[in-house]
């Protein structure tokens, strides 16, 4: 009997003593954290993709609280909805940003280039980039090994088996920019989604002279400058034998698309053209 009483007594006393010690230790080493950090973290999407430039959603939340401003702090995944929620919670003004989407600026792939070499190393774009130009010979081409696919946290990029090129699912893409960072060829660009999701862009990043790039690829930009001349809004600039369309200036008139002799300029989500037959004749004459 006395053994049981003794054990209970010892346990109770130890428990009480520990509780007292722990209480004072907890008081002494208490970390005072702004409770708003937790609230903000919950408001953010929680993908921890790093698209904002910080290590994760919590890190962005901490930075918003510490800076007490939203300058340069933006969650590209949540977009305007999340940012306006955060802004109203913090009593700040949220900057509006145009929604963007990742765009693949290479259309070479299996269909438009003739493979000269065979790559059989590890399926990683950076490794291939270090060892060779590309199977078709273009030093700027998409390698099609899917580093962008592996890094996408939103499952929005896939490699198309027929073309060997990545395709962006524009519904799922949140423009976090992870694929842009990992692409060793800088083939992926974040561009404005555009009105009704309509976009016009140059699907090529090759900076070689026209003759050389044309040898390797049927659809490369040859830097001929026709699009630059036809553009009424001064949105197109040719630099290093490559045309680039400034999406802020582009009014989506699509004149450049018709003018391009190699078909390097792409239009997305436009309704089909009315006089399509005529346009094709024109395009072939230009060639």
């Amino acid at each position, binding site marked *: 009997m006395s053994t049981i009483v003794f054990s209970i007594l010892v346990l109770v006393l130890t428990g009480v003593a520990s509780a007292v010690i722990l209480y004072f230790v907890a008081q002494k080493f208490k970390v005072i954290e702004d409770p708003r950090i937790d609230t903000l973290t919950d408001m953010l999407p929680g993908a921890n993709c790093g698209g904002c430039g910080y290590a994760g959603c919590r890190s962005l939340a901490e930075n918003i609280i510490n800076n007490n401003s939203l300058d340069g702090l933006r969650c590209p995944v949540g977009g305007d909805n999340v940012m306006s929620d955060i802004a109203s919670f913090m009593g700040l003004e949220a900057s509006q940003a145009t929604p963007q989407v990742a765009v693949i600026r290479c259309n070479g792939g299996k269909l438009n280039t003739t493979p*000269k*070499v065979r790559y*059989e*190393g*590890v399926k*990683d774009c*950076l*490794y291939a980039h*270090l*060892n*060779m*130009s*590309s199977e078709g*010979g273009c*030093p700027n081409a998409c390698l099609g090994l899917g580093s962008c696919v*592996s*890094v996408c946290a939103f499952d929005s990029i896939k490699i198309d088996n027929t073309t060997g090129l990545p395709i962006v699912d524009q519904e799922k893409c949140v423009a976090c920019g992870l694929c842009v960072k990992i692409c060793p060829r800088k083939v992926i660009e974040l561009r404005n989604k555009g009105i009704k999701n309509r976009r016009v862009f140059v699907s090529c990043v090759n900076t*070689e002279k026209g003759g050389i790039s044309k040898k390797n690829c049927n659809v490369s930009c040859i830097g001929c400058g026709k699009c630059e001349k036809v553009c009424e809004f001064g949105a197109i600039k040719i630099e290093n034998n490559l045309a680039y369309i400034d999406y802020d200036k582009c009014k989506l008139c699509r004149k450049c698309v018709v003018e391009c002799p190699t078909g390097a300029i792409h239009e997305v989500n436009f309704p089909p053209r009315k006089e399509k037959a005529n346009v094709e004749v024109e395009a072939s004459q230009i060639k």
Partner: protein
Amino acid sequence: MKTFHRGGTHPEENKLTNDCSIEVFPLPKQAVVFVSQHLGAPATLVVEKGEKVKVGQLLAKAEQFICANNHSPYSGTISKIDLAIDFTGYKKTAIYIDVENDEWLEGIDTSNEIVRDIKLDSKQIVEKIKEMGIVGLGGAAFPTHIKYMLPEGKKADYLIINAVECEPYLTSDNRLMLESAEEALIGIEILKKALGVEKALVGIEKNKPKAIEQMTNLATKYKGIEIVPLKTKYPQGAEKQLIYALTKREVPSGKLPIEVGCVVNNIGTAQAVYYAVQKNRPLIQNILTLTGKSVKQRKNLLVRVGTPIQSVIDYCGGLPEDTGKVISGGPMMGKAISDLSAPTVKTTSAILIMSNKESSRKEETNCLRCGKCVTVCPMGLQPIHIAQLAENRLWEETEKSSAMDCIECGCCLYTCPAGRPLLDLLRLSKNNISEIRRQRAKR
């Protein structure tokens, strides 16, 4: 028999061209010489389009510390200075020369007479090596003179000459030792003098008995040059492994051989140094082995820098029908050539032609956990562990697992029964770690 103590493997030797004596390759009609052919900062062009050049004339000048001069291997007119494709398929600035004749610059001794007297002192020798654009001919193309400008407080005990040639198929060093042993030995003497050491050790793999015999006989005439036969084991010719085999000293991780009092140079470099110092001849040619099981006429050729690879292959009977891969260098460490119109560079020591069957990789399957890659790794790394980390893109973890110590010898990839791309992943880790380190340095 001396060798390194850890790992290593023994691939089929295939030294098919051991008995083919060195032929002089005829001058091409048009040559393409890259402006920079070394490791480090690019050299600055000193010639212009339309200019007439002679053999040995300076084309590009080294203006920064890790940089090497580049001389014209031909006499003729510079037709253009433009981008040219190199063997990886990328384009680099190059000088196109229309070759007219073989007129050498005045002051260069073109005779075959052997000059034994070393007139220059150590400082002048290093200056001469720098002036003549000598780079390491072992493969890395590191400017040689930098190895002889020892950092403060460091002293060299040994000069180590790498004549191991552990890569299968390659025979250029073997032929060099058989045909111009004396030139190489004088070159070693010069390097010894430049470094101020008493002893030079020349490591040669046991599978070259004739070369060992000839070198040992001739080396008796020179004081302090010792020829050491080494066990035939790959990668015997890797810098750190060779130092261990010859001196039992181990180079610490991330450090250079001078840390343990050694300077290592290739035997080909020694010969180039002989030409530079004794004959005033810049580095404009090298010995190239054209080999492969299916090649009709396998040859050892003395080729000027800038010769199109295609013309070398045509000279030896053309590309065999079943060709799967053309490799610049040996089968273990060489790189696949993606464009045959690319010219040779200072360090092109071999062109290896392999059939489709020989060269394609094994089908990749799951890791068997057999541990063979760990057994063969000469640096004592765990390739599969690092590869797994690399597959998950955990670059900082690969750094902790010493991925940077990898010498890229390819033993792991060669041995792996599951065909895992271990070497690729290790190289990828090294590249990503260097990038991370650069970022850290910026901060």
